[in-house]
């Protein structure tokens, strides 16, 4: 379990995130939604150990601020929003970087084969020999996800859950690959890991998230299941636009239909 209590983050003296309480339980996908500039990425970066924060964050009961990089790398893998690469590495060489932490959790001797298997999972079979910089934005994003999967290949290590931090994992993907990636996240959670994902597509969020954290102006505006959180009033207020929330006839899954910008 990851617990964040009263977390605030300031960058250059400017408060970006204020007093956020947050938790991820093993076995679930927690989605963070909110308009641009609401502090989602900043909060996730604090959770990843990239930014100084006030408050308390624990991962599986251990204080994040006291963890060494290699210890944190064993417990969670992070998919950033965008990655720029400075040298012409091949796709395999990039994916292999996920194994640097040394605890993929795969069976002994299987690490060598993980890059191929991870690439197959993100639908990039046969891409290992390609140059990363030659790929499209969506393909690059999936390569990065394959790297992240190698790092925490087993969602549970030594009996303890591990976590995926995904910052807009599907933002540059076509609809098929959005579903493939979200299914990977769901599978990771079902096998005992925890997932936190920043998402912009509210319908995808409704489909996959067990709990939604709505951020607005650096604070939590609402927390709860998709059915609880996705209401006309709240979403219109937070996103400042006109929309309708309906319920799919086949079940109780809500969907969001945008109407107009004002």
């Amino acid at each position: 379990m990851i617990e964040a209590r009263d977390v605030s983050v300031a960058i250059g003296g400017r408060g970006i995130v204020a007093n956020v309480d947050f938790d991820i339980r093993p076995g679930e996908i927690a989605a963070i939604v909110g308009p641009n500039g609401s502090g989602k990425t900043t909060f996730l970066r604090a959770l990843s150990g990239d930014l100084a924060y006030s408050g308390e964050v624990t991962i599986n009961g251990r204080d994040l601020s006291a963890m060494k990089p290699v210890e944190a790398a064993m417990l969670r893998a992070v998919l950033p929003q965008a990655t720029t690469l400075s040298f012409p590495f091949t796709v395999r060489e990039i994916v292999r970087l996920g194994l640097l932490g040394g605890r993929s959790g795969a069976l002994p001797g299987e690490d060598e084969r993980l890059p191929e298997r991870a690439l197959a999972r993100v639908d990039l079979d046969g891409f290992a020999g390609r140059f990363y910089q030659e790929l499209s934005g969506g393909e690059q994003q999936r390569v990065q996800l394959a790297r992240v999967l190698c790092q925490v290949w087993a969602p549970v290590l030594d009996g303890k859950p591990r976590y995926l931090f995904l910052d807009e994992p599907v933002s540059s993907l076509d609809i098929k690959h959005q579903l493939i990636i979200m299914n990977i996240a769901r599978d990771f959670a079902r096998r005992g890991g925890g997932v936190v994902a920043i998402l912009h597509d509210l319908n995808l969020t409704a489909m996959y998230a067990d709990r939604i954290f709505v951020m607005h102006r650096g604070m939590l505006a609402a927390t709860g299941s998709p059915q609880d959180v996705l209401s006309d009033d709240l979403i219109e207020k937070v996103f400042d636009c006109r929309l309708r929330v309906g319920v799919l006839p086949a079940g109780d899954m809500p969907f969001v239909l945008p109407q107009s910008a004002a």
Partner: protein
Amino acid sequence: MVDQSIAGASTMATASDGDRSGRARIVILLLCLGLAVAVLLSLTSGASDASAVSVVGDWLLGAAPGNEAVSARDRLIVYDIRLPRVILGVLIGAALAVSGAVMQGLFRNPLADPGLIGVSAGSSLGAVAVIVLGATVLAPIISVLGTLALPLAAFCGGLATTLLLYQVATRHGQTSVATMLLAGIALAALAMALTGILIFMADDRQLRDLTFWQLGSLAGATWQKIGSVGPVIVLALAAMPFLARGLNALALGEATAGHVGIPVQRLKYTAIIGVSAAVGASVAVSGGIGFVGIVVPHLLRLAIGPDNRYLLPASALLGASLLLLADAVARTIVAPAELPIGIVTAIAGAPFFLWILLRKRGVIDL
């Protein structure tokens, strides 16, 4: 978007499964052989006709009775004049090339080079200060440090420049290329101006020493010099392989390197100190030898890819070989006089650097 220059590199370096480690190992093996050949040639070529064959024979047979193959004069030339020079060339070539590769990994940019961004100028300043002020202002310090004073001063100068440069060019874990190059130019100009003041203060004898020293040369290599800077360079080089994995991860940015478990701060400071030590020691004995640090890693990336686990040792080997080659050219092209080796590496290296710039124009946004 497919970039032409990267596509060009890929035709040279594509392995179907993206694993270039096998090819890298072969290249490293070949480079070992190449260095062995370069060492033998360097030991043999020169004003004396002592040949590589007879030297090896002498070495193999040792003091075996009846071994008259090599005269005492040849032995003197090979062991006391050429051998120190060759060892120094190997050490400095390796140090400069590896330092270039490490800096490029650290700054995440193929254009970073100790000579280009002011580190060598900083080292130079330290060394010139010791040469000019050694008999007067700095005399008490030098009497304590002895022969270590020169490399130490060069190290401090290089370290100060690198730290300053890194602070200026990096913000929120991202290094700006434009800022890095411009700050490097400014720091180099400052260091050279201060060096100029020292030169202004120097007497005629010091002046001549300084001029030739600044142009860069392996002439005057002695066992004593090797004794004072050799250990520093060897230590710095020995530390570099431990940085390789971290530098690979750094290609994805500082944050991601941290996420996969690399202690980024420690990596950065180890790299900066290692590079400053290696470059400082090199500058202290041989002056400014430019472009080795940029040409060697770049050529090798084309051949084996950017994986630092192979790039760093390969750079050491190729850097050593190329510097021996450049030294051979410097010694022979205007014989019996000798061209400063810095001129040779600059004449060969500067056009190469321009070529890299042209190829990279589309990729790197200055």
